[in-house]
């Protein structure tokens, strides 16, 4: 199945080429009879300066898609490009450098290094690379995310929402070609979640960044320009200018078609690693998880988020 995944839908001038693309991207776990396909010959193009959301039921392969596009996981077959660079076939060291210099990451939780303060966390990828951050840009990002008065705080002194904002700032700070956000709102209450989504939207609209977000929350997906729906390791549909209701409706159809039946690829993502917060909850339309208890500290007795 081949789906043109990127459709321009705004009036703005479209930059040439895509930020990332994959052709025949296949990821199998195990081999022979017991092999499980997490991704089945996926073709996808991620448009530049767009906010793309990837949705799908648990086990649909959406996390695997993100991991392989980001060079975190190897592929079984197919090719992946980041800009003009083919990353399939790159060595571990080159992949590390690629992630460091050209990709930004946001995870669901545990995004920050607890021993470093907010500013140090934000500039970490550039520090690791031994590069000086672009000061003007950095200040701009910090102000945009409203982190000015939190820069000297350690992660333990920040609320969950603040922590995700710092992670967002880190992803933006080096002006990467592509930002991958893996369930960035999964651990936040709805207000903090909305705020983070607003910042991601802002990153695309005013800062000209490219964002790919994996989520199971239709409300979150509604903030994107384009939603890709994954099921059984394939892109089965897409929706431009999504609304929460529209996405929810589309997801419900999945449940009717696939959800009840035993899904052959159902356990795929779950077998990749021990179950943890990064694995999506089984119920795609479930209640948003509660914000983890903010850690009270001397400096910040009441989280202001």
């Amino acid at each position, binding site marked *: 199945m081949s789906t043109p995944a990127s459709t321009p839908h705004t009036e703005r001038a479209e930059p040439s080429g895509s930020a990332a693309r994959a052709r025949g991207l296949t990821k199998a776990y195990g081999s022979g009879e017991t092999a499980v396909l997490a991704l089945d010959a996926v073709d996808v193009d991620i448009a530049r300066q767009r906010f793309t959301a990837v949705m799908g039921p648990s086990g649909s392969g959406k996390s695997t898609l993100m*991991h392989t596009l980001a060079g*975190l*996981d190897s592929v079984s077959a197919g090719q992946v490009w980041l800009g003009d660079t083919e990353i399939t076939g790159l060595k*571990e*060291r080159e992949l*590390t*450098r690629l*992630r*460091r*210099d050209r*990709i*930004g*990451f946001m*995870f669901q939780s*545990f*995004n*920050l*290094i*607890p*021993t*470093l303060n907010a500013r*140090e966390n934000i*500039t*970490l*990828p550039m*520090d*690791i*690379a*031994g590069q000086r951050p672009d000061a003007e840009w950095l200040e701009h990002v910090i102000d945009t995310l409203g982190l000015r008065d939190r820069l000297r705080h350690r992660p333990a002194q920040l609320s969950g929402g603040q922590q995700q904002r710092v992670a967002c700032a*880190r992803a933006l700070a080096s002006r990467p070609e592509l930002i991958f956000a893996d369930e960035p709102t999964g651990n936040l209450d709805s207000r903090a979640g909305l705020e983070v989504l607003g910042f991601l939207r802002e990153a695309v609209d005013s800062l000209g960044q490219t964002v790919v977000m994996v989520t199971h929350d239709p409300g979150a997906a509604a903030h994107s320009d384009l939603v890709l729906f994954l099921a059984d390791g394939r892109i089965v549909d897409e929706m431009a200018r999504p609304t929460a209701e529209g996405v929810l409706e589309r997801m419900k159809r999945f449940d009717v078609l696939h959800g009840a039946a035993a899904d052959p690829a159902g356990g795929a993502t779950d077998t*990749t*690693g*021990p*179950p*943890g*917060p*990064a*694995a999506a909850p089984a119920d795609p339309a479930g209640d948003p998880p509660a914000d983890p208890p903010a*850690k009270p500290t001397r400096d910040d007795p009441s989280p202001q988020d």
Partner: protein
Amino acid sequence: MLKATLRSFLAHKGRLALSALAVILSVAFVAGSLIFSDTVARTFDRLFASTAADLSVGPKDDLDESVPTGRTPTVPADLAERVAKVDGVAATHVDATVENITVVDRDNDPVGPTTGAPTIAGNWYETERSPVEITSGRAPRAAGEAMIDADTADKKDVEIGDTLKILAAPGSFETRVVGIVTFTTTNPGAALVFLDTPTAQAKLLGGENRATSISVDAATGVSDSELKRRVAADLGSRYDLETADEQAESAASELGGFLDVIKYVMLGFAGVAVLVGIFLIVNTFSMLIAQRTRELGLLRALGADRRQVRRSVLIEAVLLGVVGSTLGLAAGIGLAAGLIELMGVFGMNLKSTEMVIAWPTPVASYVVGVGVTFLAAYLPARRAAQVSPMAALADAEIAGVGRPLRVRAMVGSVVAAGGAAALVGCATSSDTSTSASLLGLGVVLSLLATVVAGPLLVRPVIRVLGGAFPAVYGSVGRMSQRNALRNPRRTGATAAALMVGLALVGGLSVASASMTKSFDDQIDKTLGADFVVQNSSFMPFPTEVTEKVEATDGTGLVVRSRFTPLKLRMPDGKTVETTAAGFGDQLDEVVKTTYAQGSSARALAPDRLAMDRGYANDHDVRVGSVLPVEFPGERKVELTVAALTDNEGPEGPGMQGGLFMGLGTLEKYVPDGQDSAVYVNTAPGTDSEALRDRLDTALDPYPQVQVRDQADYKKLIREQIAVMLYLVYALLGLAIVIAVLGVVNTLALSVVERTREIGLLRAIGLARRQLRRMIRLESVVIAVFGAVLGLALGLVWGVSMHQVLELQGLKAFAVPWSTLVAVVIGSVVVGIVAALLPALRASRMNVLEAIAHE
């Protein structure tokens, strides 16, 4: 609950293995030293029991020869005939056996052990008690014939028909080897030379009617003690009578000194291993419990009470102790076997097959192993019991980190104050024994204080130590520094293991450097002679040597010196036993002495005596005091104190108390001694290098003595002190091995705890190399922290030890900076080595799995 304990024990076996290694090392040293000394003791008990005569009649000698004088006390040989007539005596033998000889071959190379074991020459007679039997050739029958033991013959390629020269006190003589004897029992390492009885008496003892002792065999039915009673009744109390048992006992106690040294050294190692091991075990259990806080919380939530939780941890500790002790006991047997083999190198042919494992060995092993583990695990176990059921829900990283260190600060300061008081007391005390015991107390207390307060020092010290990291290594450096600060308790305990060993090394190296410098200063200040001829182990040598020196062309002034033990009754009523030196005239030309009162001329005059002013004050002695003195052989005379010296160190004349007299006085009362040193000045107009060459040539036939100038003499002293340093370095090695285990342990756990963090770092682009560097830097900063703390403590100890040494006259103080710097650099290496495995493990982690890790 027991099942849960066992499961947990097995689940953490990797981590426990490191602790077990510490237990194994401690127990191995304890068991090894016990097995070794038991084995040696039994071997020698057997040797002495089988070779001692029923009764031995020897010269009476009340004075202990703490400094060898070369004297050989004798009894008249015809005593044998008199004793033979005593009722109940079956037979008597004349013994003429000496140890103060050197045997050389044709090339003047010494034939005999070079390990400090004696070369024994004696008369040969047939007896069933001989430890040897003739295995080739025949017994010596006339002057100029000798037998030698097979082990020595093998080692030095001596064969029947070879000529050997024996350098004995009365003079040197040549003999031809006519027979070889072989030990039928354990060879204690000595070289044996047998002569016929008249030759032995004449050439070894310097007189035909002399014997070193008379061996008496009892008639059937007469017990040894009965025999002793009867012989004593006949001879009176002029001689020293010893039964076989008594001889074995005194022989064993002589040997015991040497064996005790080995035993104490080994126990010292065991002590260090135990001490350092405790930190490792405490740390391991603390970490295991921190790691399992949630699990323990769950157990508590499910209804386990505190006692059960505590017991579960302690049972784990006991299991570890039992496993460690068992393996340690096995390792100890191996260690003892190794030592026994090593003794073979020194010529002591013990047999591994006769190894003795007496019951106290396993008992001590298990008491040490299980006891240490149990004690070390007790605090962590209590902490485990205090885990609240709520911990099942809490964030694991937070638990156990933030608890305030206030209690530690308080206890630490109180103990530190005690330690400081003791050390200050030690420094200001003027009495050596008070000072030494205060030193011991101070060392223990200050060590304890540093261990308790260590975690408090982590922050300030590591901030400074790792201060340059962010500048040099950027974020990687910053993260390593902060990781080391993350859990001060853990960092402190890990570093403490290294600290203990390095504090010992620091203190002892300061002490030895100060000693070396003091001796150097003393030699510079007091040694006026161009050359000193003496034995490197300060053993006396035959008069022939002195004669050769005097006869050498270009020799100017020659001043002889020798020692004697003596007993004095002091004016304060105390009777002291010490050693006095005797010097030839013109002492001032070769040894510069400062006098508080009197002069060399007065001190060396007949029947006069000089001593150190301080010693004299202690005993109410003044110039003019007349002291009753007893010399060896119960010679009682009175000597007048004619001078008091004001020497700063032990290299002044004399030994303890600085007693010395004229050589004429000494030789008058102790006629049968040997010279211990000969001071030589170059004759006017002679080149001293040329004289030295001639002296070396002249003394070539006497390999037991060497010619030394001031520089050589310093080197000799340094070598003596170096022996102590080798021991220090060996201790250091052991302490480091265990400390490395501790650092590995801590890092390995930290890596596991920080799995997600590491995954995140890798995801956002930290290269494997950078990750390894981060862990390595953390390891290095922990190791250097331990080293700095240890060396600082060691310096404090060193200063205090110096105060004690100063009371002994070793005034100079030196800090061996190069050693200390080397130790710090070494600790960097320790950090790097310890980080190897944990860093590799961290860098091999799968990024995705690490991120998803909980």
